[in-house]
Each structure stands twice: as C-alpha cells, then as structure tokens.
C-alpha cells in the first residue's frame, strides 16, 4: 500500500442532528487522516436517500477508482445489493451503524447498539421510577432503527408497571418534538417520564415542558449524546438526569480503522460494536467535546 490509496466515504445527508454529527465527524477524521497520510485520498459524499447513495458509491467505483468504501447506509435493506457489488468488485468494505440484510458482505462492521439504546433507557426508567407510572414516547422517523430502539425500550420496561400513554413520531426534529410534547401535555395530566430516544427531540420536548411549567413532574431521556444535553446532565439538571450514548463519532472510528488497514496493513475484520452506555452526572465529562456541532 505504498501507492496512492483512495477511500470512499458515503454517509446520509445531514437531515437531523445525529446525521449532522456523522457528517461532521467524518469530515473531521478525513481532514486529520489526510495530513497524516498524504498518499491517501478520500472521496466524501452524503446522500439524502437510497438511490442517491447507491449512485454515489457507483460513481466512486467507476470514476474515482476507490480501494475501500466506508459506508453508513441510510436504508440498509435498499443498499445491500449495491454494497455487495462494490465488494464483488474487490474493494474493502466497512459498514457503519446499520446491518445489511445479508451477512458476509462487509469486511468490517462498526456499529452502535440500537436495541441497547432503548434497553439502557428502559433500565434507567425502572431505576428512577420503581413504582412505575405513566410515560409517553416520542419516536423518530418510521424506519428500522427507530423500530429497533422502540422494541428494545418496550421489552426493557416490561414488568416495571409502566403505562405507555401514547407514542407519536417526532421525526428526530426539535420542532416536531415541541409540538408533539405540547399536545401530550394538554392531553395527559399525569406524566412521570418521557422517552424521546434522540436528543434533538428532547430539546423540543423540554421547551414544551418548561412552557407548561411542569418541569418538576417528569424527566426526559433521549439518546445519542448531544453536547447541549450532556452539559445539562453534567450540571445535574433534574429534567434531563441521564442520556444514552450513541455517538455519531463511530464513523470516525470506522474511517480510521479502514485507513490503518489499507495503509498500515493492520488486520481489521469482524464487528466493532460501540456500546450504548448510560451517561450520568458522573461520567458525562468523558463524553463532552466542545468542538462537536452535535
């Protein structure tokens, strides 16, 4: 691997906070690695939907002659056969975050733990509300990872005497989080806990709760480890006592591993699952990163 090496990086467009973070960390690690390894060239593309993302990786193969592909597939089922073609063309393939629909395509799999994100949150709910109680759920978009998190949470709270009053989609979006939470507050006089599974949604929900003056009645647990929320956790804010990590920085890990494999001949293969850990007041400092836009 002494000649020029080209690595393609394909991620979904920054259409909410977390993917925004993915874009940021990908860009950052590319910039860093480019100075470290001058003979490595990176091709970076972000796509708003599956056909565009497939188009991006096709272009990387046919016009940019990539040697390896690091991809966070927006819609893994739709992308599977296209990624397989890249693999079949003899490229090294690293898949990030989302499982393809057939096994054995990727050389390397780097991922967070979606069911774990739900389950960890559920564990905290049980802990914080030993008596159980009424909770509401603000979901993301109707796509598989949302379903995995949701299922993880639902099975996690089993036996905890919780009543899920309702769940609605807030589209991983602050504005929608605000709206849905406002209406939940109108509708339900008694809410003990809110699970939003995403910090963007949390931020909207928190504003709605503050507006209604019901901060003291409930807490909000999100996910993904957004700086603003982590700060609040670190400060011991009662409204956001904890968060669950699901860092977009996993893309950087994947890019670094792939690069060191190609350039340094480091053998990497298999699965790297980054835990979804519970972030509390005590360990929040470990997750803070002042430069991150997420």
């Amino acid at each position, binding site marked *: 691997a002494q000649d020029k090496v080209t690595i393609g990086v394909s991620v979904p467009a920054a259409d909410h906070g977390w993917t*925004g973070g993915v874009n940021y960390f990908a860009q950052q690690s590319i910039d860093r690695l480019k100075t470290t390894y001058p003979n490595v060239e990176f091709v970076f593309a972000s796509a708003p939907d599956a056909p565009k993302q497939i188009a991006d990786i096709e272009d990387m193969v046919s016009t940019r002659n990539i040697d390896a592909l690091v991809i966070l597939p927006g819609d893994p089922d739709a992308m599977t056969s296209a990624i397989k073609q890249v693999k079949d063309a003899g490229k090294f393939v690293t898949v990030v975050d989302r499982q393809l629909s057939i096994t054995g395509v990727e050389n390397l799999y780097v991922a967070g733990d979606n069911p774990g994100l739900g389950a960890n949150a559920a564990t905290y709910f049980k802990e914080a509300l030993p008596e159980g109680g009424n909770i509401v759920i603000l979901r993301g978009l109707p796509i598989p990872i949302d379903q995995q998190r949701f299922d993880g949470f639902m099975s996690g709270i089993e036996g905890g005497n919780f009543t899920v009053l309702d769940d609605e989609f807030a589209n991983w979006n602050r504005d929608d989080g605000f709206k849905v939470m406002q209406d939940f507050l109108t509708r339900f006089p008694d809410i003990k806990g809110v699970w939003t599974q995403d910090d963007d949604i949390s931020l909207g929900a928190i504003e709605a709760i503050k507006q209604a003056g019901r901060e003291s009645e409930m807490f909000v647990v999100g996910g993904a480890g957004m700086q603003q929320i982590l700060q609040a956790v670190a400060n011991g804010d009662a409204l956001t006592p904890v968060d669950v990590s699901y860092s977009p920085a996993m893309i950087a890990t994947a890019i670094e591993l792939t690069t060191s494999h190609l350039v340094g001949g480091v053998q990497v293969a298999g699965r790297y699952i980054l835990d979804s850990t519970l972030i509390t007041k005590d360990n929040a400092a470990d997750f803070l990163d002042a430069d991150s836009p997420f």
Partner: protein
Amino acid sequence: MSAASDISEKPKRGFRLELKTVGPLLALLLLVLLGISLNENFLSYSNLTNVLARSSFIGIIAIGATFVITAGGIDLSVGSMAAVIAGLMIMVMNWLIPTMGIGWGVVLAGMLAGILLGGVAGTFNGLMITRGRIEAFIVTLGTMGIFRSLVTFLANGGTLSLNFDVADVYRPVYYDGLLGVPYPIIVFALVAIGGEILMRRTAFGRHCAAIGSNEQVARYSSINVDNVRLLTYILQGLLVGVAVLLYVPRLGSASSTTGVLWELEAIAGVIIGGTTLKGGYGRIWGTVVGVVILGLIGNILNLQSLISPYLNGAFQGVIIILAVLLQRGKRT
C-alpha cells in the same frame, strides 16, 4: 369566479357562492367539533393558544405566499429561506455579544438582521424572476437548494445554537404575551389584518390580482407588472423574516432541518383558503383559516390514539381534500 370584494355589497347571492366562501370555515368548524369529541382538553385555552402560536410561523409565511400566488407566481424557497435566515440571525447575535453584551440590544439587532435578510432573499428571488425572466418555479426551486445548503454549511451539518443567555432574554417573544395572548398569535393577527387590508384596500392588492388574472391586461392598464411582481417576492421575504423572529426564540436554534417542507404547508394553506393556484384571486382570511386547519389536523392527531401514527399522513391527506371539496358546489 367572482371578486370577493364585491360580496359584502351583495349579500343576496345564491347558495353555491356562499359555499365557496364559507367552505373553509365549515371545514374548520367540523374539525373543531371532531377535536371536541375526541378530547375535552381540546377547547382549553392553553391548547388553543398552543395551536395558534405554532401555526403563526407558517401562517405569516402563507400570507406572503397569498400575494405571490395571487399575482400568478410561486415561491418554493420559503422553508429554506427561513432556515438560513434563522441561522444567520443566530450567528449575528452570537457575534455581537462580545461588543454589545447580553441584552435586548443584541436581540433587536438580530431581529433587524432577520428582517433585512428576508428582504434581501426575497429581492433576489424577485429580481431573478422579473429581470431574469426565469419561471418562478425554477428560480425558487434553485434558491430552495441554495438556501438549504447554505444553512447546512454554516451549521457545519449540525445545529446553530443561540447563546444561552441571549436566548433567555429573547425567549419571552415566543412564550409571553399581552393580556394572556401569546405574542406569536398577536403578530400573526396583525400581519393577517395588514395583509387583508393590503389585498382588499390598496392598489397593490388589486394590481396583484390583475396580474395573476391576465398579465397582458395588467400591462395594457399601465400597471408596472415587473415591479408589482417583484414587490410580492420582497413582501414574501420580509414576512419569512418576521416568521423567523418568532421561531428563533422558541428553541433558540437553527439547523438544516429547520423549515423543511414549510413551503408545501404554506401553499396548501393558501389553496385550502380558497386562493386560486393559477393566480388572479386571493383572500387573506381564507389563508388564515387554511393554515389553522392544517395546524388543527396535527393537534387532533396528537390528541387521540385511535389512528396508528403511521397513518397520520393519510388522515392529513384526507382532511385536506375534504376541506377543499367542501368549497365546491355540485358543478363548478
């Protein structure tokens, strides 16, 4: 098709016309009845003010869109424009803090910047359309992409957040109010009244309708078609600016997802309100009703558990079609 301004003078019209006029109101009424039947909190003061305050952004934008559409144009860029204005406004405020300190000074400067940026963006759209002679659909589709990219770029793919202390100063603009009526609702109402007057009682409004109805006739009637049209886009831009002034204090942030699909929602509100998509006839009060209908649909969906959240969009779609169906007599 008949000009609405005449209606007040002739209340003796037939049933069909009244249906056309009362249609959106009727749809609104049915929706309210549905809301009441689903949840006793629906009519609560806090719920109603919540819904109206939430609708104010789209509402203010849609009032601008009513002028654009009445004059035969279209503006697809409003959602992205709102996002980029919000982003720039936040950057301006954050940037001014070291010199101006925390306080209303910074907020007012930011607000001024927001309005100005809106005017500039609208002027850009308008000039491309009137001087460049490019279809409004294409120009604003293009600027929609440009504005959206710009905010993503400025936010580095993430979120631009307003300094927390400034946000605290600014927050009351969304959450407080006068005599219990939240400011967003007051601003929305003022813009609506102003819009209604502008549309019905000024030469500008008349000229918009004339241009949308038949551009040639307008030109032969010594109306400066290009200028009037340009003005509609500038007005649209300014109103997007006003909407952003109310949006930023709510969450204190802007990102690449801010304002996504607002254009569609605004246009839908305008059309549900009875304005003709092809131009030539527009009514502001209809737009207000249309936007409130759209706001209520979302609210009602959140107030019940009967419909699977997966089917929210279908419910919305059905209501939109029904709302317009109510305006149609048997044969139009």
